[in-house]
């Protein structure tokens, strides 16, 4: 588990990845770019590798990877894929 956190996060996100699969790596890079460019230290991003933690995948219904769950701001939103469409991701984050 990999956490990138702020002291008082307004944005809480979970990114589920599958090891070092190319699309997982792309997704990590893409979401970091978006977050760092827009909300810098106001977010908390949790990266979960389901290859080593399949129970999390069961608990969160992660059937496909990469999968981003935006926990805060509510309501919870799910985006799957490499998150290459920055506009779509920003819209989901209501930025």
């Amino acid at each position: 588990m990999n956490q990138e956190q702020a002291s008082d996060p307004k944005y809480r996100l979970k990114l589920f990845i599958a090891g070092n699969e190319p699309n997982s790596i792309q997704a990590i890079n893409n979401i970091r770019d978006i977050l760092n460019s827009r909300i810098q230290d106001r977010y908390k991003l949790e990266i979960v590798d389901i290859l080593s933690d399949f129970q999390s995948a069961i608990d969160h219904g992660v059937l496909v990877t990469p999968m981003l769950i935006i926990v805060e701001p509510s309501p919870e939103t799910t985006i799957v894929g490499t998150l290459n469409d920055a506009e779509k991701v920003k819209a989901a984050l209501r930025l």
Partner: protein
Amino acid sequence: MEKETKTEKCSLPKIPTRIAGLDEILKGGIPEKRTTIISGGPGCGKSIFGIEFLYNGVRQGHPGIYVTFEERADAVRQNAKTMGWDLEAFEKQNLLFVMQANLDPKTMVSGDFSLMGLFSIIEGKAKSMNCKRIVVDAIDILLRMYNDFNRERSEYYVLHDWFSSRNMTSIMTVKSSQDHGMATRYEFLDFMADCVIHLDQRVKEQISTRRIRVSKYRGSDFGRNEYPYVISDKGLSIIPVSTSSLRHKPLGAPVSSGNERLDMILGGGYRKASCVLIAGITGAGKTTLANTFIKSASERDEKVLYIGFEESEEAIVTNMLSPGIDLRPAIDAKKVRFITSLPEAMGSEEHLMRAFNEIKEYQPDHLVVDAISACDRMGSKQTAFEYLIRLLNHCKENDITCILLNQTVQSMDIHQISGMEISSMVDSAIFLGLVEVGGEVNRMILVLKSRGLAHSNQYREYLITDNGIELMDVYVGEGGVLTGAARQEQEARESANQRLREHRIMQKRHELTHKEAAKQAKIAALQSEIDMYKSELESMMEEEKIWHNGRDIRARLRGKLNDDTLNKTILGNV
């Protein structure tokens, strides 16, 4: 624990599904460590197929994973419960895992993704459970997220390869429809999978029937026909009529039909485990004859299952009271069980399964179907034929006597009276007919066939009385069998003749008596004549005496002397 069966010809290892009838078609089961595709339209029972396979496996000690993309896991558990399968109990023992795998429909897609989440879950679970059997239900729901058919297609291959590489035996369900576009869309799956099973539900003449067909089995032989199947409250059941070998037992000893005279005509009664056809037009007394048998069977402590398509149990029981057949004691003693339904109520497979389940549970000695003519209403002639053939087959294999009632038109032809081509299955055939003679209608019974028994081939008249069916004596004369008034006339004529003969004898007897009397009379007359002569003679002699006396008096009057002299002279001359 159960060992995987291996066929003799090839070494392909198979896993029995233990779904009734399916392993027979698959010659052992589905291929081990390979992918089997179940395709079918909505409501075909694809999901039930999968659950039943896993559940049966778990019961044999093989853990299983069920991944559902369409239904909620709770719904799956609940549905299974209606079949009597308690999935939760097995889940608690970590022998079964039902995974609800549906993505939130609001999920957005941005860029490429893979099925690694699913694989990771399955792999992790499979390892913790030591599971080798997996069912993936309706994965097309997930794959549709790609919104790209080629990608969808390649993911099926990924899935297939992933299962194969992990030596898992998998079943994937795939939707198909009559729609041609859909059929070709998933055609590639038929090439990919090692075993392909199609489920099909079709509605014909308002009655739905289900068919199963195996279209492919790599490295194995399989039954290539379409087989009817049903989804009952005990799961899927396939009835492979064409693969079922004939394991008929020989006919048993005769059992009484309940009517002594009919037994005589039949050559002893119905044969146990035989098929008896009672045909006749409406009102001929078919049901009465069948219930006569039921009554006597119940008294012999034998059980009868009554499959009624025409009347309810109450109606039959009430109706039978009028010919004096009281079924209530038999019902109370559980010697007769009725299953009544309208033929239209369900498909023929369901009718068949109901019958099979009842037979299994109730273990009857005999079975009555009232009436096979109504079976046509299950769909078509073909459906009715299949239903009956399978039912008869089942009964023959289980040593059950079948009494089939059939409503027919007025015809004596055995093919006609059986109504369908089941005549070869029929061991005994009884025809009940109405014959019109001299302006009235009479009931007639004829035994057309009584396999293995010497039977009478004569028509007989019968009556339905307050005491059941009563067979009359046979009258065979120049005009064939006589019935009703004609029979009575004949009887009257015969009795008249008899009376005439008796009369003649009486007459002779009388004549003789008269002669005797006459003789006596004549004797008496002669006697009286003699007596008369006697008396005449006596009277004449008396006259003579008187005359002599008179002469004496006259002589005395004329003078004694003369007279004396004369008298002396006369006397002297005399």
